[in-house]
Structures are given as structure tokens and as C-alpha cells.
């Protein structure tokens, strides 16, 4: 081969070497990304933000990862994607916004290298009202300007049905969602399920009158407050009262008939709106079109909207206020993960005995033997031989007997949303002496996030770092040495398990719990009217009945309810010299999370708790040598059935601080409302199912944390029929028999007004006994 041929070959190789990377670069350039954040990039820190990404592949087929990364974050959400050649895919990536940042990097990666990326501008909204306007057409409300409000300004974002997330977490940045004129079938089943879970967690859904048929057609039953009827002229007085200004005049709308539990504003024949609680949230159904021109022209419209469009609840968090209980529940659950289980220790005494025998053998016994045969220098050989052979023997024994050196702790809260749907959240924490990555199988479709750092019962738990694959059945948990780190999984799943019903008759109050699932329901506890009934285990296919004892003590705080549920376990743990039972501590924390807010919202109604062995959203962590602990709590709201003449003891007609619009106070394990400032209006309500009750006898019991003022207190009760306050003679504290109570209990509600020197009473507690007839 001559030099010229060699030169040609070299040139060919050089050209090939140059062309190969160029071809790779072209294929990288073939993938393009267009990403945008939901809600125009507005989000509430601590909530989730959906990111829509459109990925186009002009090159050959490729497996890529779409990732979203916040500046400075150690973990990021990612979505694996198979891209066929020439394909275009739309994906939604849910990103946990655990930092207050103003931008986010979205990238498409292959083999760890970014091949397309985009930076999205974001806008954190702290202590603001994020209002979503979901409408078939452009909807414009005369909202108050930011500068006219002292707190909770509005950030309104226009949404279309296509913008609505299919996961409840995607809505978590919104505190209020106003739906108007949306054609039926606009939202998919997944979007409606997400809406249901969002309201249950604390969202406020406002439904405009729009087309009455549309309301009937597409919303789940739980999210309907009233049945729309024919056209009607809507009295503007409730609007004027709310805006504290002259009204806009009569509005054209629909006639709303409140459903059980619905609270109407305005005249019963044509209320202006009807509100109804669901879970921690609220549904407000308007009888009029929120975009009506009369409203747009109305000068007091900003005040009206500001008063009406309030978050259903506000929870203080390190990120600012949030309109969801999720943060608090997750913190309670994450804290419970630090209560690690006890692990049985290996038979170490046997090992020590063997080592003592070895020591004697290698020392005096060997020396005596070698002296006897006069070969003491053989020690140089025999000591290592005995030592190594004994070491190998003990090594084999140790490998066979060693115990777990890792712990995986898993807890799951399954909340029944009705219609066989549950919102399930599973928290998984892992502890390992060495840095390790655990491969974890989860049900496909779960949304994953790292846990937020919190000091729990026994230490600190924090989130894992690295990529967290979304909606994938395979994720990786990377933990650092001796750091308890974890993730939170969330998914809406169907479940067939617990069916329960409370029957109220003249015989008393009875609960019936049926296990329709295939798992044992353990330690079932029914809570109604601040009373607890422990039913024990219910096997699959089994039905259990229970009746509350008439003399059962009444408790009003969720701590007291939990105290009654776990009374035996807590008493056992409190014996002198007895260590705390960590499993019970986890159960208490989980029950606290499930019952969060139960003592401040009478609308929550009865609740049934049951422990199941296997969560529907179970993470299977591949750690064969780990000690694994798993607890799952299932909560469901029993159906309340009542007929004929019934008597309701204390606890059913309960004080509702939210409806009373007063802050709560606690004294002597009772929850009440503050008496100051006077007049104090106490709103009490029955569970939604009992709202049609017509009272024949009503006895109020009023008490206070400070001494009840002996003079100067006026007690009035509201007559719903005549829309006026009626004076009641009362020299409290104690029982107050309400004569002819029927007009005072309407839609399951009574209102009592205390004025005059009641301010000196401190905290007011109110309970009621009622007898009546269910129509």
C-alpha cells in the first residue's frame, strides 16, 4: 500500500469522524419543545403547577425524558416519553412548587443530555386569591383592584375546558374556580374527578347560572348545591347586603331549589345563590349570570365579588396562606413517618459466647497444647490458621443471622370522595446506613413529589433528591446515609371497600358498616355528633351494626375524638416504665390528619375510620433486607338515613364556627366561638341529610369559659319564616327550651344571637338536643 492510498484512507476516516457527530447533532436538533405553564405562570408557593409541553420529533424515534427543574432544587419532576419519528406529543407535567421562584427550566433529555430546553417565566402569588374563570366564552368580572384591597387581592386567570388539569393537584394553586356557561361534556371524567377532589380538599367552586341543563348535565352530584328550575327574577337584596351598598336591581336568572344541606341566600322561592359544603370545600351555585351586564355596570360589584369569592378555608403555612388542608395533612403524615418500627435483634449473646470460646482456644489452650508437644514456635502458623478459620465460620453464621439494616416506612390516607372514588395519598420514607437508591414500583398514573422537610415525632424527615418520574410505575428513591427521606404519591383511585350508613329512628342512632372489599377492615371507628363508637374488625362480606350508648360523653375537639379511639393503646403506653408504642403514635397522627378541621366544621358530618392492610396506592420498595412497616387509614362519610319521628341528642345540631363567621376558641376540651365582639351570632347546623327535619322540641345548652354575665345579656333566635329575630328569656348558663321551634330550624340551621354584656363571657359553647319529624 503506497502513501497515497494511506492518505486516502486517513482522509476517509477523518471525514467519517466528522460526519458522525454532525449526524447526531442533527437528530438532537430534530426534537423541539414548546412548554407553557398553567394559569399564565401564576402559582401559589407550596402548591402544584401543571406544565404543558408539546414535543415534536422530526428525527428518528427516541426515548426521552421531559423534566421540569426549579432553580436550586435537588429534586425534579420528570416524565418518560417514547417519541416515534415524526411524532408530536402533548404532555402535562405536574411540578411541586416548593420554592418561591420566578422561572423554571423545562427540558427534553436523552441519555442525561438536554437536547431541547425552555425557560418559563413564573409569578408566585403569596396570600392572594387565585381565581380561575372557566367559561365557554370570555368572562369578565368587575373584580376589586389590587390597590383597593388590604389583603387577599385577586389574581384572575381565564381557563378553557382544555386547560383544566386531569389531576386534583393541578388545581391546588387555585383557591376559587368560577364556572359559567360551560357546555355539557366539556370536561372529561378525569377532569371532573380532579374537580371533586379539589373541592373536597378546600376549594371553592362557584357555578354561574348559565344554562340550567348544563348544570344538571355534567357536574357530579356532590358538587351541586341546588336544582335549577325555570327562569326567575332574582331579588338583588342579598347582593346589596353582601356588598353593603345599594343593589344592581333585579337580575334575570334561574330558580334554585336548595338540595339537602344547601344554604340559600335570599327569598326561599328564588334565592340569589345557594351554598353547600363538600368535604373541606364549598360549592356556591349562583342563580344569575356572573357576567350579566347589570353586574358589570353595578358600582358596588367589586365589593360584592370580593365578599362572595372567598376561599372556603385559609390555612397558614410557611409558604403563606393556602386554601387547602393538604399542606397540614401532609405535614402531620410526614411527621408520623419518623416513628420507625422496632426491629428484632439477632441472637448476639450466642455470638459473644462463641467469641469467648475462640479467645480461650487461641490463647491459653493453644499455648498449653504447644508447650506439651514442645512446638511453641508453631504459634506463628497455628494462630493465623485458627483465627482465619474461626473468622470464616463466624462470618457464615453472621450472614445467616443478620437482621434488617434499612427501614421503609409507609403510610397511606385513603379518603372516600363518594361514587366509589377515593383520593389516596401515600407517604414513603426510607432510612439506610449507606447512600442507596431503591427501585420502587407504584401504580401507574401516580403523581410523585419529594416530601417537604419537617421535624416529626422522632427527628427530621426530608425529601429525596434526583429525578422523580411522574405517572410511571417505576420510580427511584435515592437516600443519603442515615437520613430519613421520602416521597409523597397521590392518585385518585376507585375503591370497593367500606359502605356505611347511619340510621336514625325513634329507637335511637344506629350505624351499619358493610365490608364490600377483599381486605379486613380493622378497628373500625364511627364518629358522629362528637361521639365515638368502636366497632372492631369487619371481615370481607361481613356487616356490623352498632348503637351509641345514650350516656356516652360528648367531646368536641378532634384530639378528644382521637383520645377516645385510641384510649386503650394510649393508657397501655402511659403505664410507668412503658415505652411509647410507635405504631399507635403513627395511627394517632394519621387520624389527626384525617380529622383535621372536623372540630371547626359541623358540615363535615359523621365519619367512619378503618385500617386496612394494603393501600390501593402501595409503593413496593425493592429493599429485601429492609424492615418494612405499612399503615393505611380509610375514611368514609356514612350515608345518614332518617325517617319518622326522631330524637337527636347533643352533637348533631352542632355549632358551626365557619357559618358563624367567628373565630374558634377552646376551653376544657370544648370548642366554641369567641363572644367578643358583641353581638355574637351562633350558627348551628345539622348534617346535610337531616336538613329537612321539622323540629318539635329544641333545647339549647349555652355555656361559657368565663362566668356567664348575670345581667345584660339578650338572647335571640332567628325566625326563618318571618325573617326576624325573636327574643328568648334566658338566665343562663344552662338549658334553654325553645318554644314552638319549627320556624327556627330551617334547612337544618338555627341562628342564635347573643348581645349586650355577653362580651365578658369569653368563649361561648353551644349544644342542642332536638326532636322532630323527617318529612
Amino acid at each position, binding site marked *: 500500500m503506497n502513501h497515497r492510498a494511506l492518505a486516502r484512507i486517513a482522509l476517509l476516516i477523518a471525514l467519517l469522524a466528522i460526519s458522525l457527530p454532525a449526524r447526531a447533532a442533527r437528530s438532537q436538533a430534530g426534537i423541539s419543545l414548546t412548554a407553557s405553564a398553567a394559569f399564565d405562570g401564576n402559582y401559589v408557593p407550596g402548591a402544584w403547577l401543571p406544565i404543558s409541553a408539546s414535543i415534536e420529533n422530526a428525527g428518528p424515534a427516541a426515548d426521552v425524558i421531559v423534566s421540569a427543574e426549579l432553580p436550586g432544587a435537588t429534586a425534579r419532576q420528570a416524565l418518560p416519553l417514547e417519541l416515534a419519528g415524526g411524532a408530536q406529543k402533548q404532555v402535562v407535567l405536574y411540578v411541586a412548587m416548593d420554592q418561591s421562584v420566578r422561572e423554571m427550566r423545562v427540558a427534553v433529555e436523552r441519555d442525561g443530555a438536554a437536547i431541547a430546553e425552555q425557560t418559563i417565566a413564573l409569578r408566585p402569588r403569596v396570600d392572594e386569591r387565585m381565581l380561575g374563570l372557566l367559561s365557554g366564552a370570555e368572562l369578565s368580572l368587575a373584580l376589586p383592584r389590587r390597590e383597593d384591597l388590604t389583603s387577599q387581592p385577586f389574581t384572575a386567570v381565564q381557563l378553557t375546558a382544555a386547560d383544566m388539569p386531569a389531576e386534583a393537584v393541578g388545581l391546588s394553586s387555585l383557591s376559587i374556580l368560577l364556572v359559567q356557561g360551560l357546555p355539557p361534556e366539556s370536561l372529561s371524567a378525569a377532569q371532573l374527578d380532579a374537580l371533586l377532589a379539589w373541592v373536597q380538599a378546600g376549594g371553592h367552586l362557584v357555578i354561574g347560572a348559565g344554562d340550567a341543563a348544563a348544570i344538571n348535565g355534567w357536574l357530579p352530584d356532590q358538587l351541586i348545591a341546588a336544582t335549577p328550575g325555570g327562569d326567575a327574577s332574582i331579588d338583588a337584596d342579598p347582593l346589596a347586603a353582601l356588598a353593603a351598598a345599594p343593589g344592581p336591581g333585579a337580575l334575570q336568572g334561574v330558580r334554585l331549589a336548595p338540595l339537602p344541606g344547601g344554604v340559600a341566600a335570599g327569598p326561599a322561592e328564588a334565592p340569589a345563590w345557594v351554598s353547600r359544603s363538600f368535604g373541606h370545600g364549598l360549592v356556591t351555585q349562583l342563580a344569575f349570570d356572573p357576567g350579566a351586564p347589570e353586574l358589570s355596570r353595578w358600582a358596588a360589584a367589586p365589593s360584592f365579588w370580593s365578599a362572595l369569592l372567598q376561599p372556603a378555608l385559609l390555612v397558614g403555612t410557611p409558604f403563606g396562606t393556602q386554601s387547602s388542608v393538604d399542606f397540614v395533612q401532609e405535614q402531620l403524615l410526614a411527621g408520623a413517618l*419518623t416513628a*420507625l*418500627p*422496632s*426491629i428484632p*435483634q*439477632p441472637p*448476639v449473646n450466642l*455470638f*459473644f459466647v462463641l*467469641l*469467648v470460646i*475462640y*479467645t*480461650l482456644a*487461641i*490463647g*491459653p489452650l*493453644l*499455648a498449653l497444647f504447644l508447650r506439651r508437644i514442645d512446638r*511453641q*514456635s508453631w*504459634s*506463628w502458623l497455628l*494462630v*493465623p490458621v485458627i*483465627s*482465619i478459620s*474461626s*473468622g470464616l465460620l*463466624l*462470618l457464615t*453464621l*453472621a*450472614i445467616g*443471622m*443478620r*437482621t*434488617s*439494616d*434499612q*427501614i421503609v416506612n409507609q403510610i397511606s390516607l385513603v379518603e372516600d370522595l363518594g361514587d366509589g372514588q377515593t383520593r389516596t395519598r401515600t407517604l414513603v420514607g426510607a*432510612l*439506610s*446506613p*449507606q447512600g442507596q437508591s431503591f427501585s420502587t414500583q407504584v401504580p401507574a398514573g401516580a403523581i410523585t413529589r419529594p416530601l417537604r422537610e419537617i421535624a416529626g415525632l*422522632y*427527628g*427530621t424527615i426530608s425529601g429525596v433528591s434526583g429525578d422523580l418520574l411522574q405517572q410511571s410505575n417505576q420510580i427511584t428513591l435515592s437516600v443519603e*446515609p*442515615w*437520613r*430519613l427521606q421520602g416521597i409523597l404519591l397521590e392518585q385518585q383511585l376507585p375503591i370497593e371497600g367500606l359502605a356505611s350508613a347511619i340510621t336514625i329512628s325513634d329507637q335511637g342512632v344506629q350505624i351499619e358498616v358493610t365490608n364490600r372489599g377483599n381486605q379486613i377492615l380493622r378497628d373500625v371507628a364511627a364518629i358522629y355528633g362528637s361521639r365515638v363508637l368502636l366497632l372492631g374488625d369487619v371481615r370481607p362480606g361481613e356487616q356490623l351494626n352498632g348503637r351509641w350508648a345514650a350516656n356516652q360523653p360528648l367531646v368536641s375537639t378532634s384530639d378528644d375524638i382521637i383520645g377516645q379511639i385510641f384510649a386503650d393503646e394510649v393508657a397501655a403506653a402511659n403505664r410507668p416504665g*412503658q*415505652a*411509647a*408504642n*410507635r405504631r399507635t403514635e403513627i395511627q394517632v397522627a394519621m387520624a389527626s390528619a384525617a380529622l383535621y378541621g372536623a372540630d371547626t366544621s359541623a358540615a363535615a358530618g359523621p365519619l367512619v375510620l378503618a385500617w386496612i392492610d394494603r393501600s390501593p396506592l402501595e409503593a413496593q420498595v425493592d429493599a429485601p433486607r429492609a424492615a418494612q412497616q405499612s399503615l393505611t387509614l380509610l375514611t368514609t362519610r356514612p350515608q345518614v338515613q332518617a325517617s319518622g319521628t326522631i330524637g337527636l341528642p347533643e352533637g348533631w345540631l352542632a355549632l358551626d364556627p365557619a357559618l358563624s363567621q367567628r373565630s374558634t376558641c377552646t376551653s376544657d376540651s370544648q370548642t366554641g366561638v369567641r363572644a367578643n365582639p358583641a353581638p355574637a351570632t351562633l350558627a348551628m347546623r345539622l348534617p346535610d341529610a337531616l336538613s329537612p327535619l321539622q323540629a318539635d322540641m329544641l333545647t339549647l345548652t349555652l355555656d361559657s369559659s368565663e362566668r356567664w354575665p348575670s345581667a345584660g345579656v339578650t338572647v335571640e333566635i332567628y325566625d326563618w319564616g318571618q325573617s326576624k329575630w325573636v327574643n328568648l328569656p334566658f338566665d343562663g348558663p344552662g338549658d334553654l327550651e325553645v318554644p314552638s321551634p319549627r320556624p327556627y330550624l330551617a334547612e337544618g340551621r338555627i341562628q342564635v344571637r347573643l348581645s349586650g354584656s355577653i362580651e365578658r363571657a369569653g368563649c361561648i359553647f353551644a349544644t342542642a338536643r332536638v326532636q322532630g319529624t323527617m318529612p
Partner: protein
Amino acid sequence: MTRRDLIGPVLFKELATQLRGSRAALMITVYVGLVLITARLFYGVTASQLGFGRPLLGAQIGQVIFIGVSMVIQTMTLFLAPATTLNAISQEYERGTFDLIRATPLSLSQIVVGKLLAALAFLLLLLISAAPAFTLVLLFGGVATADLGPVLLVILSTAVLGCTFGLFCSAVTRQTFNATLLCYALLISLVGGTLFAANIWSLINGLSAAPAALVVTNPLSAMATALAPIRPPDTSFTGGFRPLVLLNLLSRGVIDSSGVLVPIYRATSVIYGGLTILLAWGTLVAIRPRLRLIRSDGLMLAILLGYVLLALLARGWWQPGIFPG
């Protein structure tokens, strides 16, 4: 040339006589016994937390036992290593046999190396005999094979330096009693003095971390930094003894609650290597009848310079955080 010539007649003689009598057996029994007692003690202290309902991970116990046993072995090596050679030269002088050995064709370096290797062999025998106790660590887990490397490095470098130091004291004083006094006085000064200096420095500087250089020659501090990466838990999920507190006391300024700040065991090993060469050279000089330069001095100087050159080349491994620049 026979095999005896190859391994050295002095070494052969020492190996043949060292394990005679009950002293060696007693030492092995006490050595392994102390290791076992330490392991049982540390296990007991840690496992007692179970009585308070605190869960213990096996790995946690394993790490605590490993740390405790390694510290005890290092302490025993520190004080035993010189003891094995303290009378190696002085006894020959005291018995009047040194001149007889000098009359043989054996060179001074053969005598010194023979005695040194014999002492090291005995120390190695002790270490091997204690090895089965480490299966306890495997029973509980928590220690990776990679964690053994730094610990072994520190123990071996301490053993070699200790034996050489004992030999040097023995050669310099030529009297076992004086050699013992000199050796242990210097040893205690080194261990206690550096820790004392570091703690005093910290006290007078607002409890800030002392410079790592203050404890770089301390064998216990070196072991503490070799053990600290094992990082037993310092959180309260689990109960148990927290040996990191003890390690922190031994190495103020180089370990804190977040882990190892400066892994000084590397610098310690490098310094110990250099000191070993210097002390061996000093021993050779001390047992010479006349103080004059000979060919072996050139060899020792070359070894020392070669070592210094190697240490300089590898300074990126051991120097950061200890000495500036």
C-alpha cells in the same frame, strides 16, 4: 545462600524465641479479650435504648461496635507497638551481648531491620487474632468494605512508627528503663498535648474549630477521622449511643456534626511514614560505635528524599485543609 540468610538471622532468632513462654499467649488472650469486652460494652450501651422503646437498626449497632473496637485497637497498638521493641537493643547492651552480635558478619541494618520486623510480625499476629471479633460488625451490618481501608492504614502506620520509635528509644538510651520512660513520656505528650492544645485553642477562640494542623500528628485524631465517614446516626429516629460525640472530642476542628471536615488520617500516615524513616536512620546512627558518615547514611538519605518527593507529588491527596498552599 540459605533461606535463613535471606530473611535475616536476627529476624529468624527473634521469631523463634518470641512466642516461647506464657507471655505471648497471655498477650494474645488479653488483646482479644479487651477487644471483645469493648464490643460487648458498646453493644450494651447501644442496645439499652431498646428498653426505652427506641428502634435500633442493626447497622447502627454495627457501626458503633466498629468504631469502638477500632478505637481500642488503635489505642492498644499505640502503646503496645513501642513496648515490643523497647528492650530490643537495650537488652542486648544490658546483657552485654551487643558486642558479640557486632562481632558477627551481620550489618547494623540487618540487626535493626530484623528486630523491627519481628516486632511487627508479633503485632500483626495480635491483629489477626482479633479479626474474628469483627464478624460481630458483619452480624449487624452498617460498615462497607471500603470503610476498612483508612482504618487499616492508620493502624498499620501507627504500628510501624510505634515499633520504630521504641527501637529508637532503646538504641538511644541503651537502658530498657530509661527507654520506657523516654518513649512513653513522648508518646503521652504527643497524644495528650496535641488534643490539649487543640481544645485550648478552641476555648480561647470562641469555641471555633482549631486548625487541623494541631492534631495532625495525633494517632487517635487520625483514627477518629478515618472512622467518622461511617457516620452513625446523629438524629433521634433511633436511640443509641452516639460515638460521633466521642470522635469529635478526639479531633476538635476536623470533625463536626456534619461529618469529616479534614480527613487528617492521610496526612498522619504520610508524616508517620517520614518519621519512621527518620527514626530508623536515627537508630542506625545511635548503635554505631562511632559517629561518622557511612554508605548506609547515603542510602537512608536517598530513601528519605525519595519518600519526600513521593509525598510532594501526592500532596493533593493528603495536604488540603491541613497546611496552607
